[in-house]
């Protein structure tokens, strides 16, 4: 149980810099998810914390102590790998006991710790099996069991669910979360899947091209993304974004885009080139024919919801496609014309040049 701090972390491979001055704190007992597209540097950051990569610049602290020069084994961390990394020539029990065996712990302690971890993860019947005899989900649990036996200060997860099928992933997500609630160990979790991030994290760190785009709780990131990247990365289906011009006068504002006027929150100067964003779930279909006109292209009913693909602005010369998600069923058919209603408080306005949130 410990806090983790990154101070001005930089990483370069030869002349190529891949991480540019990252700094943030993780509180004791927190579950923090590092999320971002491939190549953003999240795994590299995790591996620097683990001691598997050299730190080119800056400091990493665990429990207030700088660990840059410490070997992995002295940092009191445990890691769960994407490919489980179980020792093929050892049984499940031996895999889990390995770290204790290296420290020459006595049999009693080893057995006790291994059995305790096995119980938590329902691995008791599997202790004498070999990894090759186990399913993917079972192997992942053994990998977690190995980490639990260590009783470390920090748990590190490197995309542990990527090799599992969708259904198993959902089940394992819940298990990992439950484990964290039970053990309350500080956890750093890396994934490229924003749904995993949203469902599991206390706080999310969104990374992109070696920098942090935003840190916040899942709902903070969802409701108030700080920039265009986070806005489009978080949320599924992703946010609708169009380019337009901000018009602000008196106490109200709107954005001109796709030949229509889109309600926007106040903030930002008049005439600014912006990106206007609105989530598919924040667009309503007006029953009364008032609102922004759109032509239906595709209707995808998913049972509880209906996803519509719309073409907007065909008459204006600027065209764009929007996705709208409505609850329940609709009678709408392809080629129908519908009208859209948007509330200003649900809209997100980003500076077209910097991508940063304007309002």
């Amino acid at each position, binding site marked *: 149980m410990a806090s983790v701090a990154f101070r001005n972390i930089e990483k370069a491979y030869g002349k190529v810099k891949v991480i540019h001055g990252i700094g943030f704190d993780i509180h004791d007992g927190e579950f923090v998810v590092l999320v971002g597209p491939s190549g953003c540097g999240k795994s590299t950051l995790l591996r620097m914390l*683990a*001691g*598997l990569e050299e730190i080119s610049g800056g400091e990493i602290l665990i429990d207030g102590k700088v660990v840059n020069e410490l*070997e*992995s*084994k002295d940092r009191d*961390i*445990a*890691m769960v*790998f*994407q*490919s*489980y*990394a*179980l*020792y*093929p*020539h050892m049984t499940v029990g031996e895999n889990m006991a*390995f*770290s204790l065996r*290296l*420290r020459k712990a006595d049999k009693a302690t080893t057995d006790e710790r291994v059995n305790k971890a096995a119980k938590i993860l329902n691995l008791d019947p599997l202790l004498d099996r070999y990894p090759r005899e186990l399913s993917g989900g079972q192997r992942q649990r053994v990998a977690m069991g*190995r980490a639990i036996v*260590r009783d470390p200060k920090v748990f590190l997860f490197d995309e542990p669910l990527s090799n599992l099928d969708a259904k198993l992933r959902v089940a394992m997500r819940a298990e990992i979360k439950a484990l964290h609630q039970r053990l309350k160990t500080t956890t750093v979790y890396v994934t490229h899947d924003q749904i995993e991030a949203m469902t599991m994290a206390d706080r999310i760190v969104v990374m992109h091209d070696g920098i942090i785009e935003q840190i916040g709780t899942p709902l903070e990131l969802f409701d108030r993304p700080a920039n265009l990247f986070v806005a489009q990365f978080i949320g599924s289906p992703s946010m609708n974004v169009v380019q337009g011009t901000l018009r602000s006068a008196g106490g109200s504002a709107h954005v001109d885009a796709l030949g229509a006027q889109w309600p926007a929150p106040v903030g930002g100067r008049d005439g600014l080139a912006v990106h206007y964003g609105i989530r598919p779930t924040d667009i309503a279909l007006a029953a009364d024919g008032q609102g922004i006109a759109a032509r239906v292209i595709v209707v995808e009913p998913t049972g509880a919801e209906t996803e519509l693909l719309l073409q907007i602005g065909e008459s204006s010369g600027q065209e764009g496609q929007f996705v709208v998600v409505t609850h329940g069923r609709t009678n709408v058919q392809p080629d129908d014309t519908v009208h859209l209603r948007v509330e200003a408080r649900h809209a997100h306005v980003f500076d077209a040049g910097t991508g940063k949130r304007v309002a």
Partner: protein
Amino acid sequence: MKAKRMSWKKVSNEAKLLLIGIPVFLWTIIPVYHLFLFAISGRDSATSGRLWPKEPTLQNFETVFMQKHYYLNHFWLQLGNSLMIAVAVGVITLFVATTAAFAISRLKVRGGRTVMNMALFTYFIPAAFLAVPMYRTMATYGLLNNRWSLVLAMVTIASPYCIWVLKQASDKLPWELDEAARIDGATPLQLFRLVYVPLMVPSLVAVGTYALLLAWNEYLYGFLLLSKETDLTLAVALGNFLAADDSPWELLMATGLIYALPPAAIYYAFKRYMVGGLTAGAVKS
């Protein structure tokens, strides 16, 4: 009518194959059968030209095992030398090659690529070319009348290929295993002993066997480096049989057969490993 035509085609195909198969069979078997034939024949039947001796006898083997002939005076000692040297070469080569492959492949030691290339280079230079300077070198090191000179020479010759094979096999082990072990707290030696070696056992067996057989089968280096009769390997002793004008050929064949049995047995037992290992050496798959 159709059935008859089809079976005629089959027959003619088989005939064509036999046309190749029979010569191949004869070509392959004749020198070996000849060896076997005269090992179990008495002295006189050499001139008889029969395919199977009139009175097959184990007399020759008895002579060999009892060391009853001048050339066989030290048979058991020489057999023991061959065995001891082969095993020593196998074990030492295994040690040298395994540590080097581990350092190059898993520890990614600096200059590992260079060492690998140096080893590969040594492997390709014909051993017969290295023999002359090696002989003088052993003289310089004072090892000439010492069986260890042969052991060390064979270790030198066998190591490069072994390192190469082990490195190829090592590279196939997933990286995360080393990382997981490091995080679990393993030191480099613990990683080597508890994770690397257990996972490499099949390759280690193949490589150790290769080195062992290489030493057992070696003639030239034994011929150059060993001179005392009690130091000789059986291979060199066999060659010495030829010194006389009136060689006891049937004894030579019997001794040769004894000498040939262990490698043949090992090759056939480990066929899969030997083929796999050696084809990996020359084929870039």
